[in-house]
């Protein structure tokens, strides 16, 4: 009886549909609970001259106001570089950066108090674009570089060259549950922090630091999140920190729930990028050399930007072998909330760049972009080393291409699109196939470790605790299935417990798609330790009841809720019997498991290494139709094919793939962040910021998986699926770009990301007006944006 590989409902299924699932805002309030909110910087860059909250304190129900001066610890932290503050000191560096924390007994008092706080802030000149930061040469951290071969020389000698800039927008996470924390103070300044976070250990570490506590005084608990997508990794520290400050000072429980508007306005988003490139290629469109300079908008603090940039640089090859590559990246410091992790983590921006380049090459050579992709695709036996030196093992990309081209009927549909575009005067169609090859593991090798606690109770039921946090992606269900399978018992006997730093210490974020890989492996390790001891008990038992077989734990089998010696399979112990027997024999029925990914490593000083344990790959074919007069675009059909190894739970994985694709499609089409010239977010609600709606889902959406039993390096042969499908959304953007080629008649069209209706219309209009001179060898490279 194995459950791994079968569909099993999400472990919160019944809770979700009945409304019983508890999120932080649903937790009952204590009688003396305080509500917490904050007053932030009114300007994007300012010198704080005075802060006066005396009037706020006079309001009935207001209990306390705090500024950085009240922080008992060190007001400086950051997940990679320590450059962030919990509360502004004399400088503010983005609109809404918290300055005053307010605690009140009622929501109304809180709202009044916010208005009563008087700030005098001198407005300084902010940097509100990547260009502005480049002009000031204001970068966060150093310049990162990965290079192979001699791109400079090849570019000089090549017959065909293109150069340009890819402009890539950010993205709001828009988790439905806003940032939230509830902090309950205990004895001796100990705090229990319920936080809607993907990274309880980071919250614990930061809170201890800013509050002047020891880490062991802070317990961070995460039951579940109403969505995270990367936005509750480092960005969850501010809300938790402010509530914790109140709880510590007032000795009363303190809760903070951001309003959706504030959450959108004041928390960090996906990094916008502006990537300059020069590419050289041959007549077949095969890329000979690529030079790229990536500029990421890091916002006001480093946050996770260096790691995000690292992933962009290591994913700019996507599925293509680039013999001569020189990729450089820098993080621009601007006056926006620090940009942060978001599903894909820089990967999408790297991949968008190369996919845009491939579309350009095809347009320039007047080829089907699919053929250019095939000419560049990583091979299985040669041309299979990335620009940073990692060998692709068991490369399934060629297989994925072949199968999806067939199943989507790509070649035939290309002809139909050609025909449609030559006939229709009102609409344009575009078709594109984009692949993804996503490296699995944290690029910071240190983070690839996890621990797990497995406890078996006397009735045979099990509690598992790991550092993984549940945000809907189904990690708890996966772990439950893995644990049930280790003992070969009914998954109903297993509960995955609330994540807490009390049980699992120094955990990594639930991020990089790796939660099941790492935490699942650690849980399996714990199970195996317990099984070893239990097998000894069983072996002794069978030796007693079956004469002459001796006690051989290696011969003990756990199957279908029973345990037996494989030489005497008729004589079985029930799982519960063996549990009770083990207890009587004083054998530990609880273990801690540990897992550290082996065989990975990367050296940034050389830009070389094998940072990833394996790659999750996939392809997506998208077809779009565009109204030539309005620019309005609709996605008509999507075919997704992925290699996710041996799926632990195909139903949950399918949901992740489709959901990831939809989120990626939103990023590349409608999700546009608009700011005022002062740096205030204007599109801060669902009316102005359009995430995909049910009506945006393509009428035909096919999602399939290939069989791949070869990923033996990972738990049960599975592959991580959280982030990779998001990058498949780029097929929609590439299809729009493809459509523009038809409109441009020989021009290489420009297209920024996202391709909103407005952007498309602008490009269509532009194509009517301009022509592009096709340059060849010896001349200047053709400029395309």
């Amino acid at each position: 009886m194995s459950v791994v590989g079968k569909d099993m409902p999400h472990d919160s299924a019944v809770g979700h549909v009945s409304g019983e699932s508890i999120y932080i805002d649903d937790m009952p309030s204590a009688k003396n609970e305080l509500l917490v909110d904050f007053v932030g910087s009114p300007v994007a860059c300012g010198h704080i001259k005075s802060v006066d909250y005396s009037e706020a304190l006079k309001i009935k129900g207001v209990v306390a106001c705090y500024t950085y001066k009240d922080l008992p610890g060190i007001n400086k932290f950051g997940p990679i570089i320590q450059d962030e503050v919990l509360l502004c000191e004399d400088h503010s560096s983005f609109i809404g950066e918290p300055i005053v924390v307010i605690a009140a007994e009622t929501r109304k008092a809180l709202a009044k108090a916010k208005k009563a706080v008087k700030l005098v802030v001198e407005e300084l000149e902010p940097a509100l674009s990547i260009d502005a930061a480049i002009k000031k040469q204001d970068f966060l951290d150093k310049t990162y570089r990965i290079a192979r071969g001699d791109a400079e020389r090849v570019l000089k000698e090549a017959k065909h060259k293109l150069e340009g800039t890819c402009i890539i927008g950010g993205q709001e996470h828009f988790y439905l549950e806003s940032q939230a924390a509830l902090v309950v103070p205990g004895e001796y300044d100990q705090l229990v922090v319920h936080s809607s976070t993907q990274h309880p250990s980071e919250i614990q570490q930061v809170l201890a630091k800013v509050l002047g506590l020891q880490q062991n005084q802070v317990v961070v608990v995460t039951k579940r999140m109403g969505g995270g997508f990367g936005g509750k990794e480092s960005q969850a520290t501010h809300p938790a920190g402010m509530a914790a400050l109140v709880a510590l000072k007032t000795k009363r429980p303190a809760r903070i729930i951001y309003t959706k508007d504030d959450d959108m306005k004041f928390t960090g988003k996906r990094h916008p990028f502006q990537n300059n490139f020069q590419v050289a290629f041959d007549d077949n469109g095969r890329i000979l050399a690529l030079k790229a300079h990536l500029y990421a908008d890091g916002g006001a603090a480093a946050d996770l930007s260096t790691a995000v940039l690292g992933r962009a640089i290591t994913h700019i090859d996507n599925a293509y072998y680039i013999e001569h590559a020189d990729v450089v990246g820098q993080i621009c410091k601007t006056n926006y909330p620090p940009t942060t992790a978001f599903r894909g983590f820089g990967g999408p921006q790297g991949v968008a760049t190369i996919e845009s380049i491939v579309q350009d090459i095809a347009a320039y050579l007047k080829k089907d972009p699919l053929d250019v992709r095939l000419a560049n695709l990583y091979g299985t036996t040669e041309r299979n080393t990335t620009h940073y030196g990692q060998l692709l093992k068991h490369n399934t990309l060629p297989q994925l291409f072949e199968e999806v081209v067939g199943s989507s009927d790509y070649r035939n549909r290309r002809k139909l699109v050609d025909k449609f575009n030559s006939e229709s005067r009102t609409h344009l169609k575009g078709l594109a196939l984009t692949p993804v090859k996503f490296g699995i593991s944290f690029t910071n090798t240190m983070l690839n470790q996890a621990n797990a606690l497995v406890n078996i109770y006397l009735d045979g039921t099990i509690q598992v605790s790991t550092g993984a946090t549940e945000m809907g992606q189904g990690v708890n269900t996966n772990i439950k299935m893995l644990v049930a399978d280790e003992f070969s018992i009914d998954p109903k006997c297993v509960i995955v417990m609330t994540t807490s730093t009390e049980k699992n210490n120094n955990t990594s974020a639930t991020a990089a798609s790796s939660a099941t890989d790492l935490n699942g492996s650690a849980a399996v390790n714990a199970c195996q330790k317990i099984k070893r001891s239990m097998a000894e008990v069983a072996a002794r038992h069978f030796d007693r009841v079956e004469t002459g077989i001796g006690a051989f734990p290696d011969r003990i089998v756990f199957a279908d809720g029973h345990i037996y010696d494989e030489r005497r399979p008729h004589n079985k112990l029930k799982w519960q019997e063996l549990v009770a027997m083990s207890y009587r024999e004083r054998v530990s029925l609880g273990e801690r498991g540990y897992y550290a990914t082996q065989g990975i490593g990367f050296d940034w000083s050389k830009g070389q290494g094998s940072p990833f344990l394996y790659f999750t790959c996939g392809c997506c074919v998208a077809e779009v139709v565009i109204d030539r007069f309005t620019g309005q675009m609709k996605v008509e059909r999507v075919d997704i094919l992925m290699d996710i190894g041996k799926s632990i739970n195909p139903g949950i994985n399918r949901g992740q793939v489709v959901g990831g694709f939809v989120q990626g499609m939103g990023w590349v089409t409608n999700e546009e962040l608009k700011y005022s010239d002062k740096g205030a977010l204007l599109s801060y609600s669902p009316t102005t910021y359009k995430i995909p709606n049910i009506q945006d889902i393509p009428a035909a959406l096919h999602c399939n998986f290939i069989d791949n039993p070869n990923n033996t390096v990972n738990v049960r042969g599975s592959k991580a699926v959280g982030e990779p499908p998001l990058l498949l959304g780029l097929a929609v953007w590439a299809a729009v770009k493809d459509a523009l080629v038809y409109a441009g008649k020989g021009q290489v069209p420009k297209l920024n990301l996202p391709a909103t209706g407005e952007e498309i219309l602008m490009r269509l209009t532009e194509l009517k007006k301009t022509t592009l001179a096709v340059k060849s060898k010896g001349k200047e490279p053709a400029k395309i944006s």
Partner: protein
Amino acid sequence: MAEKNREDSSDMQRRADKAGGVTRRSFLRHLGAAGIAAAALPGGANSKDMTSEEKTLDTVVPIAGAMPVTLVINKKKHALKVDPRTTLLDCIRENLAITGTKKGCDHGQCGACTVHVNGRRVNSCLTLAVMHDGDEITTIEGLGQPDNLHPLQSAFIDCDAYQCGYCTSGQLMSAAALLNEPCGHSVDDIREAMSGNICRCGAYPNIIAAIQQVRAKA
């Protein structure tokens, strides 16, 4: 920082009154007699003496400015006194601690707060609790319970029609209302009817499948 000594609330009120500010109590006076009368105040309420009126109100209506309202939620009657500015959503979640209904945007833009009022779906963040005196309200808790799930709830489980679950109660309440609306049978009709409920996890295809499953059986 300065932590304030907790003041006696009556001191507080007196000071506000003296300052001539609009307090909740004066707001209530502006609301007129109807609201107060409905509170069925004992005799003292008619007294012209300001002090005694305040006293009476304080005893009868402990929340300053609160208005009485009777809501029938999931077939259970709740006689409440709420601040007239309280949304139905906050009333359900906070005053009554029935938390299956979620707050996403609080502006009528996401559908997470969808409940039924007299059988019709409503964004509970967009309507005030006091406007629903006597109304029959159904929340997700009333749609079905873990041991007695509504067919749609079971179908949502069959079709994995959620991930994080935060939009789910709203989706289900919308879907349940749709079953009784003159909604066509095509996928497009369902999309149209469900377009007020957004799901960031992107579970839309599964949500459509779940609704279709139930409608096919009906």
